[in-house]
């Protein structure tokens, strides 16, 4: 009897371990940049190549820094969420247009909506690497001091927005006001 119980116990432990393993999403690699200052960058703007956007443009307020591309299908789904968020005016969204063509990106914004305050144009993808980006879309929450506080890997779902991003943004805005 004891023998069966021991075997069953071991089996149950194995099943529990496997269940935990299945629950993990291997594509979600936690960013070591959270809690660290956002990396420096200086890039031409997407719509106005003669102007530049740099890290210091993000400072002084809580911002979302959204990495996207016109060739990215799930960015399209995300656009509805971002559009609604931009209209609410809660938090400014800055964009990093990743490895794209300028004309394609601008057309895409015309077709699917433009929630961005301004977009940086990272054609070579070097700034994205510096930010630890490995897929699009990805979104960083950057606080007023320029510290990365959260990274959303994959599109922002309404669930992620309401449960994680918005509460965090409000808390950070509170912090910045103090």
């Amino acid at each position, binding site marked *: 009897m004891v023998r069966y119980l021991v075997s069953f116990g071991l089996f149950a432990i194995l099943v529990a371990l496997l269940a935990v393993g299945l629950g993990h999403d291997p594509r979600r*690699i936690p960013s*070591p*940049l959270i809690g660290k200052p956002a990396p420096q960058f200086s890039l031409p703007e997407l719509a106005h190549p003669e102007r530049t956007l740099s890290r210091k443009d993000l400072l002084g307020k809580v911002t979302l820094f959204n990495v996207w591309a016109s060739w990215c299908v799930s960015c399209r789904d995300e656009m509805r969420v971002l559009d609604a968020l931009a209209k609410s005016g809660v938090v400014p969204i800055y964009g990093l247009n990743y490895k794209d063509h300028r004309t394609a990106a601008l057309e895409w914004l015309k077709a699917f909506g433009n929630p961005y305050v301004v977009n940086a144009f990272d054609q070579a*993808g070097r700034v994205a*690497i510096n*930010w*630890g980006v*490995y897929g699009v879309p990805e979104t960083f929450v950057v606080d007023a001091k320029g510290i990365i506080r959260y990274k959303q890997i994959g599109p922002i779902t309404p669930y992620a927005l309401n449960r994680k991003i918005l509460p965090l943004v409000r808390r950070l805005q509170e912090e910045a006001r103090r």
Partner: protein
Amino acid sequence: MRRLYPLLLLLLLMPAVPAVRAASPAAAPTVPTSGFTNPREDARYHALLKNLRCLVCQNESLQDSQAGLAKDLRREVRDQMRQGKSNRDIVRYLVARYGDFVLYRPPLMHSTYLLWFGPFIGLLIGIVVLVALVRKRARAPDGEPPPDGARKRLVELLRDREGPKT
């Protein structure tokens, strides 16, 4: 079945034999060119790439992966080598951005003790269990003494088996 055991064991070990691997007709992946003319630098470049993981296709190294990100990361490694950065600098740069996940050889830390030592612990437990079982069997008595008359019956049976005497 018992006779099959060595064969099964051999089959299990097959993938570990490099000669078998080399003979398999798997398509050779195109090796990315480093652009370094110095063979030493070229070797260093490829050695670095082999130990770095592509974040997109997670079971491929930067050396093997054809993903866009892998190409960009290869370019990053190459550029940093040209700038005179050491291997350690380059690895540190990538780990700072992508975490230990980019390393094919995870560093020895609290959270990786089980990963590094787990197999040896498992082996140790196995050996202990094996030794305990073998000792228990060796010590066990051969069972009850044969009942009366068993010996006589056995002799009879053996005699019968030999067939009729000529």
